[in-house]
């Protein structure tokens, strides 16, 4: 293993070590110190991350750095061939970026937690749970980083489950509160539902791609498509549902994506995330905003090369739905953490949507920027909640800027970032602006320019399976084009993008071929995100204003409010991160990571920063003025942030009265009610799923009871007798059991029967004896004669 891999591993193991220390000696180490132990661990990770990042950025031949050696964890046997499950460090741009981001954010949050938990950890019960909190955090850190560096889907799954466990433990940290333990359970089980799909995907990968290694899997996938073998030739029955070829490949993709739906809380599995806010605020910041929920997006990015056009389209739809409904719900929330939770959901929706439409780098870029500002805002809210003695209702806040300025303005930076503040045209803005812009740009391209660019000669087979079958290509060039296009907007760098477009690739048949196999994105899937791009600034501004600006609405709260350095220092760091994470810092790396993370020839370079090898494979956005998405977007959403925030300011600038009046408007009232009820998802699930399960359980338990207690005997109408006779008498108890019971019953019956002749009267004995003799004799004669 090379230095970098070793360092990454060290970075992973360090928190684990701290976990062990805290688990065994935590209660001795005591209150503030155990927190610092954890910080020490994660700090090591941060150090490693920084070193690796620096090395990576400076490296010239990055391919050389990629890990080669791995450790055989177990050796499976597949159709008689040995197939090891390897633990191998995945070292590429994406990992490095994510690794750095996670360690940085979590360091801040760990430090913040020391201050925060000092006040909160004692309320669990008599004894201090302080060390336990950091114990879990360290374990989470370990799992999360492990997830990032594992190059095998199997290990991805393992760490996947481990982060799930940590989230369970941390959501349920105040497990003496019913709602907390409920939320924890809800989170874990919802994730398990997703993991069920994940497992299905794993099994398909295992059997048909015959490897768990990400790169190897992708290679096999394309290979099999080339030869129309393996999964593309497969033809199986699942639950009586006949499925084959491309359909199966799609199923595999969707299955893997199901895992992401669970973790990233995508519709319809999004219900657990808002409840997860029951956990301590730092947890919400770290796990449920910055890192773990983003793991879903990371997973999609990793398995992107295994996704068929249908699967991608499915992903895009899911993302679109999620980002819309959750943003709408966010509008009406009055609990500050809930607002942030729903905005997180909405942003995750953007990322997934971006993945779905093929904006690979853009989505990940959005992931990273979002991680910073959302973590920051959560910590801010934590600060507020801490300061206001656990008041989370924004209606009782207001005017806090005087009490906690740092929090206020860092939070505002977050608001700007998520609102996508930037000056259209001139490329100035926060990370949120660029990332969201790129996603939308790609969506635009796929919606409006696609057919004109590529639809020409592939009008009618824009449909996954048929398309790929009909166009089952012979030559290797086309083989590689198993229908995946990654689009990255040039972020307005016209000349480069123009190079991408006018550089002859516009009518490059190869690219055209692939691109044409992509679905054309229907218009609503472009316009919904656009609308939400207007909504987002609104509710974030509303949240910020209600909390910090205006006049204090609750004196008591206002007077308590304060902020402590241990807690606002991290805010500063994250605020800085929010700026740095803007275009300059991460975006190019991701564009390049795309080269390794995706079928190389399909990567669309940005700003020509792609190694020459990939140059001629670029696929840019259209850039003739008529069609340029960026140009179009300037008009469409360029100033959405202004509109949204402005509207919020108008409504909330003097308190809540205006908002109240609006809410009372007849039609709005109904909408408001629906949104307050979170569009009834929980109700539906409660009635359908939980209720359904309860019903099933009722049936089962009744079945069990009857089965255990009297089973078939009950059918015989003997149930009551059975229980009455239940006096330890072997004959009864021995038989009291379903079929056995029936047998026992009948045996006893026969036993009784055969004892009837034993009347005690000798004459009867003689009679029976004689009769029996005659019968037997008759039998003999019958036998012998025959």
């Amino acid at each position, binding site marked *: 293993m090379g230095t970098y891999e070793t360092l990454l591993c060290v970075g992973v193991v360090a928190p684990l070590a701290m976990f062990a220390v805290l688990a065994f000696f935590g209660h001795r180490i005591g209150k503030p110190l155990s927190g610092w132990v954890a910080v020490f661990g994660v700090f090591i990770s941060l150090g490693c991350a920084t070193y690796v990042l620096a090395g990576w950025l400076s490296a010239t031949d990055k391919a050389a750095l990629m890990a080669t050696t791995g450790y055989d964890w177990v050796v499976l046997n597949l159709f008689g061939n040995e197939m090891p499950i390897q633990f191998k460090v995945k070292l590429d741009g994406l990992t490095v970026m994510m690794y750095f981001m996670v360690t940085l954010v979590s360091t801040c949050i760990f430090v913040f937690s020391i201050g925060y938990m000092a006040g909160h950890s004692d309320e669990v019960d008599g004894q201090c749970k302080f060390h336990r909190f950091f114990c879990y955090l360290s374990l989470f850190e370990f799992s999360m980083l492990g997830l990032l560096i594992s190059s095998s889907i199997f290990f991805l799954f393992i760490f996947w489950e481990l982060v799930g466990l940590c989230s369970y433990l941390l959501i349920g940290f105040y497990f003496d509160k019913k709602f907390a333990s409920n939320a924890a359970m809800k989170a874990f089980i919802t994730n398990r539902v997703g993991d069920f799909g994940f497992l299905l995907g794993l099994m398909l990968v295992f059997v048909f791609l015959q490897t768990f290694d990400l790169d190897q899997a992708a290679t096999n996938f394309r290979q099999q498509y080339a030869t129309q073998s393996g999964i593309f030739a497969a033809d199986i029955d699942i639950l009586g549902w006949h499925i084959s070829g491309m359909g199966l490949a799609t199923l595999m993709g969707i299955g893997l994506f199901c895992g992401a739906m669970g973790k990233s809380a995508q519709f319809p599995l999004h219900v657990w995330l808002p409840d997860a806010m029951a956990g301590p605020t730092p947890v919400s910041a770290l796990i449920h905003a910055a890192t773990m929920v983003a793991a879903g997006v990371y997973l999609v990015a990793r398995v992107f090369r295994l996704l068929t056009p249908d699967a991608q389209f499915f992903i895009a739809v899911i993302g679109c739905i999620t980002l819309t409904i959750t943003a709408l719900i966010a509008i009406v929330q009055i609990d500050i953490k809930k607002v942030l939770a729903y905005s997180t959901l909405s942003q995750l929706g953007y990322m997934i949507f971006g993945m779905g439409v093929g904006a690979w780098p853009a989505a990940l870029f959005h992931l990273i920027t979002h991680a910073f500002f959302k973590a920051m805002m959560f910590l801010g809210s934590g600060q507020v909640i801490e300061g206001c003695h656990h008041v989370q209702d924004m209606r009782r806040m207001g005017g806090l800027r005087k009490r906690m300025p740092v929090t206020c303005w860092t939070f505002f930076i977050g608001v700007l970032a998520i609102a996508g503040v930037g000056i259209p045209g001139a490329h100035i803005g926060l990370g949120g602006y660029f990332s969201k812009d790129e996603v939308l740009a790609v969506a635009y391209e796929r919606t409006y320019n696609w057919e004109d660019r590529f639809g020409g000669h592939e009008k009618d087979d824009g449909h996954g399976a048929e398309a790929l079958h009909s166009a089952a290509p012979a030559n290797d060039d086309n083989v590689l084009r198993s229908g995946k296009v990654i689009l990255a907007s040039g972020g307005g760098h016209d000349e480069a993008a123009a190079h991408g477009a006018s550089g002859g690739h516009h009518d490059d048949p190869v690219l055209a071929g692939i691109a044409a196999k992509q679905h054309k994105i229907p218009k609503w899937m472009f316009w919904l995100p656009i609308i939400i791009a207007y909504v987002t600034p609104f509710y974030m501004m509303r949240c910020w204003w209600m909390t910090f600006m205006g006049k204090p609405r609750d004196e008591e709260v206002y007077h308590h409010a304060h902020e402590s350095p241990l807690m606002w220092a991290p805010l500063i760091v994250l605020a800085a991160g929010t700026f740095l994470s803007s275009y300059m810092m991460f975006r190019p790396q991701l564009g390049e990571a795309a080269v390794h993370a995706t079928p190389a020839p399909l990567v669309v370079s940005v700003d020509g920063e792609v190694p020459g090898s990939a140059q001629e494979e670029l696929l840019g956005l259209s850039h003739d003025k008529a069609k340029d998405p960026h140009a179009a977007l300037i008009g469409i959403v360029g100033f959405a942030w202004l509109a949204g925030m402005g509207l919020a300011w108008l409504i909330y600038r003097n308190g809540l009265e205006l908002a109240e009046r609006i809410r009372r408007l007849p039609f709005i009232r109904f909408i408001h009610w629906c949104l307050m009820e979170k569009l009834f998802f929980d109700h539906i699930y409660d009635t359908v799923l939980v209720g359904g399960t309860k019903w099933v359980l009722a049936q089962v338990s009744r079945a069990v009871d009857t089965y255990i207690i009297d089973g078939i005997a009950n059918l015989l109408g003997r149930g009551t007798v059975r229980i009455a006779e239940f006096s*330890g008498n072997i*004959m009864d108890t021995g038989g009291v059991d379903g079929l056995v019971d029936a047998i026992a019953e009948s045996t006893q019956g026969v*036993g009784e029967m*055969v004892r009837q002749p034993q009347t005690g009267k000798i004459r009867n004995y003689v009679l029976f004896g004689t009769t*029996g003799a005659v019968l037997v004799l008759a039998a003999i004669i019958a036998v*012998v004669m025959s």
Partner: protein
Amino acid sequence: MTELIAEIPAWFPKAAEFMTFSPELAWVGTLCLIMLAPLAIGRDARMIAGLAVVGIAVTAFFTLKVMGIISTEGPKTGLTPDLAGGMLIADNLSLFFKMLLLVFLVGISILWMSVSAAQEDDAPEFFVLLIGSALGMSLMVSTHNILMMVIAIEFASLPSYAIVGFNKHKRISAEASLKYMIFGAVSAAVMLYGASLIYGFFGTLDVTQIAANVGPVLAGGGANQLLVGLAMFCVFVGIAFKISAVPFHFWCPDAFQGAKTEVTAWLSVASKAAGLLLLMRLVNVFCVNAGAEVLHGVAVVIAVIATLTCTLGNLAAYKQTSIKRMLAYSSIAHAGYMMAAAAILVDAGTVESFTAISTVLAYVVVYMLMNLGAFGVVALVESKNGDDDSITAFAGLGWTSPALAIPMLFCLVSLVGIPPFAGFITKWYLLAALGEAASGLYWALAIVIVINTLISLWYYMRVVVQMFLKESDKPAIEVPMSGTLLVNACGILLIVILVFSNPLKERADRYSAGLFSPVPTKLADQGSADSLAQSIPLDNIAAPQEGKHGG
């Protein structure tokens, strides 16, 4: 002197023959001694018992001696006026069974001493009857002449009737003996009637020759076949009564419940075993000589009856409240298991017959231990419980007096046939013998047997539950050391035999081999078998002279 010896008529037994049958003579001597003893030594139970044991010892001595002789000179027959078969036979099987009975007698005597000797003042009569029935049983196993068989069965039965009713003041005892007696008398009568018919058909009562001539008659079909079948079945009834095979088992539970427990123990093993071995010997001789065509029929009959017997025995034992009665039914079931082996026997073509016989021998040995132990404990317990033989009387026995409960446990589980007890190994030999016979009938029998094993578990465990899982405030039972030792010896032997079963099996094989089976001879003066077959049919029975003229 020499002429005097020359004067001895031809029918008078030779010295060698006396030697051959010295065990029986010694046995008879013992009987007479015990009968006369009270005149000399009074009626003291211990003295009488001692005398009986001495007699038994002497008998055993002669038995061993004869064993030695025939091991060198081969099986002997004798006391036979003319016919080849011989009225009495001394071969491995009969002698082994004699030894077995003698050992068992000792066990029973010990049990009797430790249970009933105290309040019993009819010691001489008891031992006379006991040893008398024993002699009858040993005779049953050493003949294959139907007349001798009838006599032996009666000889075994009459003392049994009496000994069942031995405690004269108990109502159930009297009732039991009456039932036993009547049922026995009926079956004996039927058997005799059958014997008479057989004699009519074949002109002889020697099984060998009957077998030699039965083929054509049965082949003749029609009425003859029917009548011969009827006659043979009538004879079979007599044996089935001793075995208490369904449907001739009715006497068994009543008699066993009514009798003293040690008597029950004696009858449950000895008389059944005697009946079985007799049956097997007869059927063996018969089938080996009669040839294959009759085998299948006989096999099916015995198999069917065996199935009925073990199944009915187990089922009826289900809800018994009296442990003696329960064990009586269990003894019926076990008789059924052993009869299954008899079914193999008749398939003389496929198996060496002695596999089956040795199986039964081994089974009988172990079965003797199991029943001696089980009934022994029952006897000891009920003697302290005022003759309460209900199962609940055993409640908590395992905790109050383990010295009785544990051997009881061993015996019961062994009766079920589960390792680590000898009951399993014998059941295993039985199944193996069935498997070796390798035909659908026997596989079916094997399955019947294992399923019966399962059924039987339930009622045996009832006792175990009472002993170990139930509480009781009863004080520990103190019983005579001799009885305790006896039952524990049985219990331990059961384990020992499982671990070292080879000696048992080897002996069983050795003593079941070398049966005395004479060469069949056709009746010379009756002409060939088929002429005989013509001479007999009913239609011309009316005019025997013509038949004679014809012949």
